[in-house]
């Protein structure tokens, strides 16, 4: 029979998971986990609910940036004015997930660990250069978001390891990000393609730092440095936008499925990267 535990500390959660002989799984919002349990896709022997761990609900400014507790639901994330201002693209991705009902439960860390190539919270976190703060039986470590998913439905986390927080780097002046997804409906759907762009401008509006990430065009979310390089040193002129789209398309390795063909995904990836770049550029104060 399955057991349910809701420990009050991270170390208690880690030791419960580390000691478990069968399948032990973390539950944050449960919006993926409970659906998978109902369909019989996963059959855990132990569920460790991390929502009773108070520090995992906190948003804190730290020496290295902003730390977002892994149990904070995305509705609460979207209500945080400081985050909306510093990381509009990250908030956009996280708050696009599901309905208001799903928002009241789901988390960014859960979206990341569910490891869907189309997870909406992930591209903007990759473009942000965010890190997962991980605690496990052997202590703490930090891992770039990009390196958490190993493939569809798989992560690089080891037995007993929990993501305790997502850490966004310090924001420089004139920086902003944006996230866009293509879906056939207006809400409540899974991304067919998605793109996130994160930019920092100099005082003259020239892009000095850039990152571009694409979702749903490969087994994991892609970080595309070649697309970022196409933007650096430019004021996002048409030639730069063309090079951006070209580099984004070149990085795609999508599949054909009922949601879209590979060719369609490649085409739209370039378009979304351009649009996200324009939005991020304007948000960062570029003209």
């Amino acid at each position: 029979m399955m057991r349910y535990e809701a420990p009050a500390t991270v170390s208690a959660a880690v030791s419960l998971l580390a000691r478990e002989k069968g399948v032990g799984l973390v539950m944050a919002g449960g919006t993926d986990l409970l659906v998978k349990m109902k369909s019989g896709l996963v059959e855990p022997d132990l569920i460790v609910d991390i929502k009773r761990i108070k520090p995992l609900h906190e948003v804190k400014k730290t020496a290295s940036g902003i730390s977002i507790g892994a149990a904070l639901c995305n509705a609460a994330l979207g209500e945080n004015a400081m985050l909306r201002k510093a990381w509009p693209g990250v908030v956009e991705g996280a708050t696009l997930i599901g309905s208001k009902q799903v928002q009241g439960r789901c988390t960014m860390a859960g979206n990341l660990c569910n490891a869907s190539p189309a997870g909406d919270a992930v591209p903007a976190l990759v473009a942000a250069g965010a890190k997962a703060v991980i605690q496990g039986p052997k202590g703490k470590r930090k891992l770039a978001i990009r390196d958490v998913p190993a493939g569809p439905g798989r992560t690089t986390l080891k037995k007993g390891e929990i993501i305790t927080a997502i850490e966004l780097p310090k924001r420089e002046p004139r920086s902003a990000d944006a996230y866009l997804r293509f879906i056939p409906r207006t809400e409540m759907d899974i991304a067919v393609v998605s793109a996130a762009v994160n930019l920092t401008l100099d005082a003259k509006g020239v892009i000095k730092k850039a990152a571009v990430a694409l979702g749903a065009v490969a087994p994991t979310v892609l970080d595309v440095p070649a697309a970022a390089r196409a933007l650096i040193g430019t004021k996002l002129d048409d030639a730069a936008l063309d090079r951006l789209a070209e580099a984004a398309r070149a990085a795609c390795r999508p599949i054909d499925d009922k949601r879209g063909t590979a060719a369609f995904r490649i085409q739209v990836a370039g378009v979304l990267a351009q649009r996200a770049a324009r939005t991020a550029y304007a948000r960062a104060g570029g003209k």
Partner: protein
Amino acid sequence: MAGIHVKTTINGDAVEFICQPEETLLDVLRNRLGLTGAKEGCGTGDCGACSVMVDDRLTCSCLVLGAEAEGRSVETVEGMARGSELHPLQRLFIEHAALQCGVCTPGVLIAARALLEKNPNPSEEEIRFGLAGNLCRCTGYDKIVRAVQAAAQEMRGA
């Protein structure tokens, strides 16, 4: 099977129940506590017929475990009326014929109340967006939107 002993608050009343670890809050409400307002339309978070508030957050009770209710405050459609006096949303849903079969209605009412608490004067688009997690097979949504608009106006005292 022993089960988990849970102490919680439902619609302001202290409630205790025993449930199995995999049992959802929706099943507990319906099968153990006789609160059958929340409905199971899908069981996978898509339809919103099971919507309830848990600690002031709108959630699908089909994607919450019963055991998670420990120490929390749960609000269901059964707690919306004050005695025999319907909540303005409930009354205006009837007046505007915003329901037919009624399966979606308890969830829509809870979601609409949550929306109006955050945004007392929503635009039509905001109402449609706020209720996007509530599917209705009968009404075509238009009458639901009109009823919510009327309730918003009345509740603002306008």
